[in-house]
């Protein structure tokens, strides 16, 4: 929407409005062409758009549920991958575990963004969001569980004593075979 403006002469001012007024209801000071009744068109248009909006919000809600369920597939795939990776600590299993941990976290961080396109006053997003969060938390739990099975979580006594220095002894003795 640009407006060309020019200044010519000292007293005279004129302006050309290039704006396209074909769709928007233009200002009422210009008469409508003959045989054109504005009222009927207006009414017609609003019913169509309402229907359209309903459909869109339905579609959005549906999509939002779909998006919310998407991590489930991911979860299954992750589970499969983890099963494939085995319980030994090596590059592959660590990579998978960390991606399994990272994916839900990043997804949880971007909950708002994921559901941004489906934001609508009429669409109830709490349900999908909760599901999404729950599924991702499930994924996270799976990742943590995997981490634990790999033995990378300090849940055993061995994880806490492995760097304990030996206890000092009170007594001291030396000697040996006479030199």
């Amino acid at each position: 929407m640009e407006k060309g403006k020019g200044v010519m002469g000292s007293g005279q001012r004129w302006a050309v409005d290039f704006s396209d007024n074909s769709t928007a209801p233009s200002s009422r000071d210009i008469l409508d062409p003959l045989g054109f009744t504005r009222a009927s068109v207006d009414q017609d248009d609003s019913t169509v758009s309402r229907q359209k909006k309903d459909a869109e919000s339905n579609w959005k809600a549906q999509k939002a549920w779909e998006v919310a369920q998407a991590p489930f597939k991911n979860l299954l795939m992750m589970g499969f991958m983890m099963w494939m990776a085995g319980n030994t600590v090596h590059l592959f299993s660590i990579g998978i575990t960390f991606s399994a941990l990272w994916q839900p976290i990043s997804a949880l961080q971007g909950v708002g963004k994921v559901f941004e396109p489906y934001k609508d006053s009429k669409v109830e997003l709490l349900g999908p969001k909760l599901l999404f969060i729950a599924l991702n938390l499930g994924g996270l739990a799976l990742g943590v569980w995997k981490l634990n099975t790999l033995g990378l979580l300090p849940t055993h006594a061995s994880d806490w004593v492995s760097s304990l220095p030996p206890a000092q002894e009170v007594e001291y003795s030396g000697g040996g075979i006479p030199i």
Partner: protein
Amino acid sequence: MAIRSFFVPFLLLVLWFYSSLSPVLSLYEDQVGLMDWHQQYIGKVKQAVFSTQKTGRRRVIVSTEENVIASLDLRHGEIFWRHLLGSNDVIDGIDIGLGKYVITLSSGGSILRSWNLPDGQMVWESFLQGPKHSKSLLLLPTNLKIEKDNVIVVFSNDRLHAVSCIDGEVLWKKDFETESFETQQVIQPPGSDLIYVVGFAASSQFEMYQINARNGELLKHESAIFSSGFLRELSLVSSETVVALDSTGSILLTISFQNGEISFQQTPISNIVEDSSGPAVIIPSSVPGIFAIKINSVTIFIRVIGKGKLEVVEKLNQETAVSNALPISESQQAFALVQHAGSEIHLVAKLAHDWDANLLKESIKMDQQRGIPHKVFINNYIRTDRSHGFRLLIVMEDHSLLLLQQGAIVWSREDGLASIIDVTASELPVERDGVSVAKVEHNLFEWLKGHMLKLKGTLMLASPEDVAAIQSMRLKSSEKSKMARDHNGFRKLLIVLTRAGKLFALHTGDGHIVWSHLLHKSEACQSPVGLNLYQWQVPHHHALDENPSVLVISRCGPSSDAPGVLSFVDTYTGKELNSLSLDHAVVQVIPLPHTDSTEQRLHLLIDSDKHAHLYPKTSEALGIFKREFSNIYWYSVEDHNSIIKGHALKCKCTGEVADEFCFDARDLWSVVFPSESEKITATVTRKLNEMVHTQAKVMADQDVMYKYISRNLLFVATVAPKGSGEIGSVTPEESWLVAYLIDIVTGRILYRVTHHGAQGPVHAVFSENWVVYHFFNLRAHRYEMSVIEIYDQSRADNKDVWKLVLGKHNLTSRISLFSRPEVITKSQSYFFTHSVKAIAVTSTAKGITSKQLLIGTIGDQVLALDKRFLDPRRSVNPTQAEKEEGIIPLTDSLPIIPQSYVTHALRVEGLRGIITVPAKLESTTLVFAHGVDLFFTQLAPSRTYDSLTEDFSYALLLITIVALVAAIFVTWRLSERKELQDKWR
């Protein structure tokens, strides 16, 4: 896309990383000599024979007290060849036969060998038996021939042999019937076919046998009795005259046996020497017409003139060494005298028949630290003006060997280093600003050239000559031998004490001698015998401006109750800081785990009356000691009667002189082994300075076992008294070995295991909570190695994670050994191929790195064996989890991987000990092996995980970084352009 393209090189990097983690620790060929060094020695020379024929290289053949026969280059002192005979094959005599064979008589005169002179190959060997043990004498007459065969005359095992020089065949032999006949000399007058054998029978009878050298026939046997007896030493003055001393050492006896008639001529020493006091000793020499005696410290040369008349020619007050006679022409014989005078030594060469004329008289400046000359060997050469020149080979008090010629030291060898008795390590000084790199890199051009060469090498553009230049540059890197501490702690000083009582400081970088110090003789102690080395002061936290010092314990004389001498030596400079002559003996030295404010370590010296003396004698040390008084114990092992006793300190000494640093001891406990069935053969404790990182051992299933880590644990191995001899001397039923683990504070036996059918010698090493020992299994006819690991069961229930997280446990609080320990042990045995001379274990700064056993094999090499092979948890079929933990499937014998020889292609001849010193870098340990040779290297038992290896390709890293940066730029530009295009669309 981007992720994938990054992933591929990453994967490659990871693959490379994994491939470099192979368990074999070996060297590449060009890494030899980079971090290790090897030095060859021969030991103190006993006898030297020169071989200076016109053809061939000039050399000197020597036999040494370390049982080495060696051929040395006369020009540079390098070793041409060398043979180390076994310790029970002591060399009695050497000589050169026919100008091309080295003849050696060894093993108490029962083995005669001939070696090829140029290359040291053995030509023949013959065994000479005889009725009884006796003095062994080797004689190679120059012109005695039997059927065109040169003859070697050997007197050994109370029998006279004539052996062919060509093939070692015994031509004839002759026994002597006289009871208790002790041969002193075998004489072969030149130009005759006679051999005289002279000696003593009983204490007062002089015996002479005249033998036909051609067939061993006894021609004449005469004996004469001298009522006051003889001292057992003879000096030969001519082929038919010897000089002896009577049993009081005050009368000289000239014994001549011309024409088979024995006649004595008595000359009291006081008649010819005015102020003689005390008994005299004959110095063995073979100069015709002249002999030497020693009264107190005065050496007196006496000439025999005519019919048993004696005349003193010279009296020398200084320490003097005399050489044997050297024939320089038909009728002339020369000999050399070496005298020690302050910082100089005086060399004199004289003709035997003309005392007043000197063929040679020189003074040479000599390092004070070499002490007095002990031995001298003379050799001559013809100068261009046809006069005689002389070269002298001198053995000094510190066992070093020097060749002197034309008033200068041509070469010297530090052969004292062949007999190291103790080693300790010391830090080098911290680098100061004064030492700059510019001093090391000669000039900018050299520096640039070096870097250009290196660059060429990395880019693989170097020619073979360049490669050789790079290699020599790497080997001679000035960084290695710098006299300052390095960041990784690889550069250190090895302080070694030799049998001669000399301290050497060796630089670990290239093994050069930084300083040397001969232990001083004092008024109170004329001949100190060095025993042990201890770290006296190691400044690190406080007192950083003080130099570290070592404590040398020596003893004044050979007996165990001789008074001790303490010397404190600064390890930076080699100066003796202080020397204390003690009024008590030193039987045991106990370094205590306490230091005073100047970081001097407290030492407890136990004397022969079981009094404990505290050093340093300061009130501060006494204060520290008093605080810990009730917690200090000591134990003594009496291996001759199989008792181990524990003692505690009681009170101040109850003596005439009040000494507050002296404490009485009381017996606390004793472990008495049944003497009819057990005899102590080995005792081992943990090293005092060993660091242990953790007390827990984590199993594969996350379970924890707590190691029983105690400094006060003693491993004792006893064998059946019958089986203490050689291997195979008993049947398996009669021999057994019992291993004990004993707490040396309380005397509690924590573990005991019997190996039936096992025999010593036992070699053991103790580290952390395990002990590994090596013995012979008579049933399996193989050597075996056993491991015992000991765990603390009383801590095993510390398994509550929350308590551990919050620190509510008592695992690190101080414990008393008087509380009853509950231990469990695990043990396992394996066959091992080699017999072992020494076992050591690697030690690192923090004790995190896994351990390797260093085994000195019978082939004088050092083998590194991973401790994982000696893990009692090994089983035939380990579970998956155990495999992941690194447990190796059990095999009956320990593998010997050829690449894991630490000494690679080298041999440490006569290996006696292996010492490990931790470097500052946790992954690395420094290993020093000593015997007749010295060897040093760095080891990383788990590879150098905390630093980049020497062969890390920095060029590749740099190229990768540059390529990555370039790639980032290119892709950024491309993406920019693409974005712009998208916008225009």
